[in-house]
């Protein structure tokens, strides 16, 4: 062991540094370690040296050297800006591509639909165009765009008068979202909102239309089911608005033969509405028909897990069914405010959790949980 000139019997800086840098052999290391165990002064020295080394490793002065003269530095710094720029360009390209399809056929379809053929709802359903629309397959997108064109056409200008003689009433206070009339209705982002506050009781299709609608459903039921099955597997828990379901078939029917040919593959509204159905395509055909809740009101949210189905109607009442909606039981109110959303807990794979568990949200954002849908506890 070497000694320092200042303190004859302390390890010198060479030995302490070699110890800290693991450069000593086993005998020397053991000797220095034995000294460190008893000498607070030398421990303090290696602590301070270690602290200085850690401080030196911090890249405080590295940027100064990197900012000197790198010709591609600006490109390097801007490389992350390409990602949002590319995404915006892609979105713009999509808008430019599909914009003519949305606008051009609207007057024609509106003309093809005689206003007296179908009794339109007093308030047209508010369309819910999800942000995931662009991810959908091209045929479905085309069919959806046609279906939406009908509604957009009905909302705009002269076609609005043709398709909907009665002006849309303003949204009720406390309901979800406002009506998408006027120019806002054309913007997909502006129509991404909660369902229109129109009760299912308000919509009564004429018998001829209803019969035609049922026939169309029978003919396209299989395809609809398969289409929805793939979507159902991707979307696990989303609020479902049956008011839109209730009005979409009527609009499709009013668009006339040309439109129905295009929308046969996927009934309008069947995939535009987010679904939380977890049971696959078996529920897809049923989605077209309005719900039959004991309150007579349309459901604003629905959750299904295992054999239990929960639905909330427009009044905020919660109903439970254990036979896929054949029979409903109203659940006593155990939460504050008005229930607006119910959802089923899912596992990591997106499938329902083995033990069914539901969550309920009120209009204040508070959440309650229940395992059986009957007893709710605040979270």
């Amino acid at each position: 062991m070497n000694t320092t000139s200042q303190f004859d019997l302390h390890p010198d800086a060479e030995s302490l540094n070699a110890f800290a840098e693991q450069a000593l052999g086993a005998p020397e290391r053991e000797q220095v370690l034995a000294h460190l165990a008893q000498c607070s002064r030398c421990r303090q020295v290696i602590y301070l040296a270690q602290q200085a080394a850690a401080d030196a490793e911090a890249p405080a002065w590295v940027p100064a050297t990197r900012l000197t003269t790198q010709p591609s530095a600006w490109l390097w710094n801007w490389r992350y800006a390409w990602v949002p720029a590319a995404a915006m360009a892609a979105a713009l390209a999509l808008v430019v591509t599909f914009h003519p399809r949305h606008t051009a056929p609207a007057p024609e379809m509106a003309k093809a639909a005689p206003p007296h053929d179908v009794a339109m709802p007093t308030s047209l359903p508010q369309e819910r165009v999800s942000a995931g629309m662009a991810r959908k397959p091209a045929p479905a997108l085309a069919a959806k765009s046609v279906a939406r064109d009908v509604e957009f056409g009905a909302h705009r200008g002269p076609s609005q008068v043709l398709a909907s003689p009665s002006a849309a009433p303003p949204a009720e206070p406390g309901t979800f979202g406002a009506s998408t009339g006027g120019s806002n209705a054309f913007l997909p982002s502006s129509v991404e909102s909660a369902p229109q506050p129109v009760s299912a009781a308000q919509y009564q299709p004429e018998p001829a239309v209803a019969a035609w609608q049922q026939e169309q459903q029978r003919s396209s039921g299989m395809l609809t089911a398969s289409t929805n099955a793939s979507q159902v597997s991707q979307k696990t828990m989303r609020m479902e608005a049956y008011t839109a379901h209730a009005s979409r078939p009527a609009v499709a029917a009013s668009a006339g033969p040309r439109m129905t040919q295009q929308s046969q593959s996927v009934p309008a509204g069947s995939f535009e509405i987010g679904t939380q159905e977890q049971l696959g395509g078996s529920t897809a055909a049923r989605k077209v028909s309005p719900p039959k809740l004991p309150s007579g009101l349309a459901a604003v949210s629905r959750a299904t897990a295992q054999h239990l189905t929960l639905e909330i109607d427009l009044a905020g009442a919660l109903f439970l069914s254990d036979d896929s909606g054949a029979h409903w039981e109203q659940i006593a109110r155990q939460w504050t405010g008005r229930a607006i959303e119910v959802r089923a807990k899912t596992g990591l794979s997106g499938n329902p959790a083995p033990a069914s568990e539901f969550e309920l949200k009120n209009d204040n954002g508070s959440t309650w949980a229940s395992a059986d849908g009957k007893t709710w506890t605040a979270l």
Partner: protein
Amino acid sequence: MPSQPVEASAPAGISAVPEPIHVLDKLWRESEAAAYGLEREQFSEILERVAAAQNFGLAAGAKATRKQEESFFRSLWLADLVLARACASGHPGAWEHFLAVYRQPLTRAAIAITGSDSLGRDLADQLYAELYGLTTRDGVRRSPLDSYRGRGSLMGWLRTTLAQRYVDHHRRTRRELPLDDPTGGYEPQAAAAETETPPAELLLLGRAIEEALRQLAAEERFLLAAYYLDGQTLLEIAPLLHVHEATISRKLHRVTSGLRKQVVRNLQRLGLSKPAAREALGADPRDLNLNLKKILQISSLDAFQEKAAPPRGMQ
């Protein structure tokens, strides 16, 4: 370079076995010693002194084989060693290189050590003056760089030297106030306790703990001192022992649990029953008249005994 090793007469003192000349040649070229005016003979002489001072990194009295010698030479930071020796001899090119490479890091290290910009710059300037050899002994300029032997990096050596200067300066100027003991070592409770006669069980417990601590290995005592006395974190201790912090945690747990068992055994050996020994472990530590710092600083090795700056527990 010859294809076959050519045995040459090695500098006296390195080894009885002549060093293959091509190894030293290669090391001499790799270290770029010629750039600082160091001829091969001077280079060999430096290595001779370094090796002799450390016995090739072996235990005292052990005889190094040629392979061990070569391994030792290759483990040295030869470029740093050559630079340090060239600076110590006053080579202008070496100083130019030294200032270009080490001036800024050295100042930063001094600031980090002192925690103050002004103090750090003062400390770095003082060390520069020393390194440059402004101090003379017997009319000869002396530079601490002469003591660098290349076992670790030159930057690490500079940092450690700075830390030594700072700690020694701190201890000189504040001898009554140790670096990590703001109370100055004065403990009123301990002083009061010394005047009273503690119960017999507490005396036995103190003896048992002292004996158990004495039996610990050096690394275990270092761990206890670093963690419990110095307040270092696992993350700070781990690089010193070159292990992961989780390993330090496990070792600490093992040491403390082993220490507890050993204390119980010592108490039993001193005449207490096992339940009484376990009960004695629950005594309030404040009732014990034990100076753990002092106990931990008792080493079985006598190689280093602090004289100029005694540990704080001894003060």
